[in-house]
């Protein structure tokens, strides 16, 4: 009776439970090899849309890419450290991903190039393996190289898929086309950026956040203000921006003032509510301490309550940084001088110039990320003492 039970217990002990089970990078290499081998029997493209299918053997250059990649992986196998073999495998991945670009450059159509696509899938699995090794190493490799390779992989995939399958330009342009448009249209994009970001967003953001902060301090001193304003905050956050934008245009005209006004309406209440929450964050005992020092209202505010409120203030500032950009772009749909990011998107969509629309989206995304990232860095520098930021 006790025999199987004991054996079971021993078996349980032999395989200790792991907290997290991740796919093992070691098991991926056979998958890569299998996929690549399968790819060998499939075509790698056609010369032109109507041309005959070309196989690996019919294209010595493609074969060279394949052999080079295989050689890299093979050399990597005999490397002394996992890191060195990962670097060799990365070289193989780059070589593999260069193949579709080479074929596209020769005018190949990749719509039915199943051998080539399977080969790319194998290369992507190999990249997974490389990233798994890299991300186990702390430092710049993990914090910069891994996200960089990841993003590069996404862009390359986008580029190859769009060009390989000849996706219509209207639906989705290739990243290279967007980049070319961005460069060619730089003066226009800069003028739009200046109008929308520098004129509308920055001013509206500063006024909205500043007013939200100031009114929060006032409401802290005059309690009925807080009671009256907080329900209004809920109403304001439910107002559709497409409703107030035309009204603001009628009030403040076509130029940046009306956009700034929309942003003020959007950012005022998040800042007010966050500041009020931050001002309430000080503990009773800390307030009593300031009282025992005979510190007045403003002293207590500056030395205790505002430092305690900082994490909340940053929260409001970060939420508002994205709200402000969205607000300005959408508000420009409802009347603007013939410049601005929202104006550009609305007019170029109508003219089917989707590459300019995409270029504008790139500018907006970069601006938003930098804005938010800058605030996050500032937060880390000034609230390093907060439990959520502490590094011992």
């Amino acid at each position, binding site marked *: 009776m006790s025999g199987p039970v004991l054996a079971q217990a021993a078996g349980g002990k032999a395989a200790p439970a792991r907290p997290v089970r991740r796919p093992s990078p070691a098991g991926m290499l056979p998958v890569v090899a299998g996929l690549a081998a399968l790819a060998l029997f499939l075509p790698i493209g056609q010369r032109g849309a109507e041309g005959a299918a070309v196989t690996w053997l019919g294209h010595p250059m493609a074969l060279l890419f394949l052999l080079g990649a295989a050689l890299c992986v093979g050399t990597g196998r005999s490397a002394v450290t996992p890191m060195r073999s990962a670097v060799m495998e990365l070289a193989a991945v780059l070589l593999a991903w260069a193949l579709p670009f080479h074929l596209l450059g020769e005018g190949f159509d990749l719509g039915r190039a199943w051998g080539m696509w399977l080969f790319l899938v194998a290369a992507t699995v190999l990249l997974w393996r490389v990233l798994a090794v890299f991300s186990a190493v702390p430092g710049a490799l993990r914090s910069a190289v891994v996200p960089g390779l990841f993003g590069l992989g996404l862009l390359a995939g986008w580029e190859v898929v769009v060009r390989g399958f000849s996706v219509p330009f209207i639906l989705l342009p290739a990243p290279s086309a967007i980049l070319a448009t961005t460069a060619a249209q730089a003066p226009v994009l800069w003028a739009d950026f200046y109008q929308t970001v520098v004129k509308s967003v920055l001013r509206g953001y500063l006024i909205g956040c500043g007013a939200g902060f100031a009114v929060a301090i006032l409401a802290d001193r005059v309690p009925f203000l807080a009671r009256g304003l907080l329900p209004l905050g809920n109403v304001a956050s439910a107002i559709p921006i497409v409703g107030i934008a035309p009204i603001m245009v009628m009030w403040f005209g076509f130029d940046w003032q009306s956009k700034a006004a929309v942003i003020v309406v959007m950012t005022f209440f998040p800042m007010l509510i966050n500041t009020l929450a931050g001002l309430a964050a000080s503990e009773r005992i800390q307030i009593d301490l300031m009282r*025992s020092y005979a510190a007045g209202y403003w002293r207590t505010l500056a030395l*205790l309550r505002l430092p305690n409120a900082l994490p909340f203030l940053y929260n409001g500032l970060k939420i508002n940084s994205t709200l402000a950009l969205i607000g300005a772009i959408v508000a420009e749909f409802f009347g603007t001088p013939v410049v601005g990011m929202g104006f550009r998107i609305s007019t170029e969509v109508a003219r089917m110039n989707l590459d300019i629309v995409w270029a504008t989206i790139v500018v907006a995304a970069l601006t938003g990320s930098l804005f938010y990232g800058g605030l996050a860095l500032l937060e880390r520098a000034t609230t390093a003492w907060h439990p959520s930021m502490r590094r011992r």
Partner: protein
Amino acid sequence: MVLAQTSLQPSEAAGGAPDALPRPIVQADKLSLVYQATDKPVVALSEVSLIIREGDFVSLIGPSGCGKTTLLRVIADLERPTGGAITVAGTTPEKARLDRLYGYVFQAPALYPWRSIERNVMLPLEIMGLPKAERQARARAQLELVGLAGFEKKFPWQLSGGMQQRTSIARALALQPELLLMDEPFGALDEITRDHLNLHLTQLWRRMGKTCVFVTHSISEAVFLSTRIVVMSPRPGRILDVIDCDLPRERTLDLRETPEFAAIAHRVREGLKEGHSYDD
């Protein structure tokens, strides 16, 4: 020298004839405090009369809800009494607070996490408007006094609970107050740290000769530290007994094993028993 004026022994500081009593620092006369709770009024203090003289170390002891913390907060002008009279250092508690005549040590260290240990101790001095050099000198001296020299640049969360509470004592002392008010400062600490800090505190008190009011619910802590022990009782908060604790001023932890110590502790325990019915 900064410490010179405070290092006088209490008897010398009082001046006058040698048998004259030292000057009263806290004088409470039929002090009452009634809170208006939602259902019925709560009597936190009922006709409390007490004189605390210069150089005294007075412990307020009693079960939870006996008003010991409330009494301390009234002395500190953190609460206003609803009846009776109280003077602190010969003036009203409010004037004493505005003149920064007392230092208050809370149950928790209440250090500001964005300030280093040194800048935490400098906080009250900053509010007083002292020049930077003097702030720094005073902070360094106080930190050395509580045995935290070398920790000036650390941040509160990098220190143990006992060190944090010592920092808060240094912060209270940096004001160079006439009166040190302490509200269960070691309540949250383990017994070993607590013993250590008790010893530290009694040595500090003997050296500086300050008047201390100390809230606790540990009998041995009260007997070990005090010159007088005020036994309080809840519902309503009132004083049951004031016990003179005439042990020598020079105290070591071994004192707690002596029969004199045990006798006073016994009297305190009897007093607490008298006022506390365990039925409610």
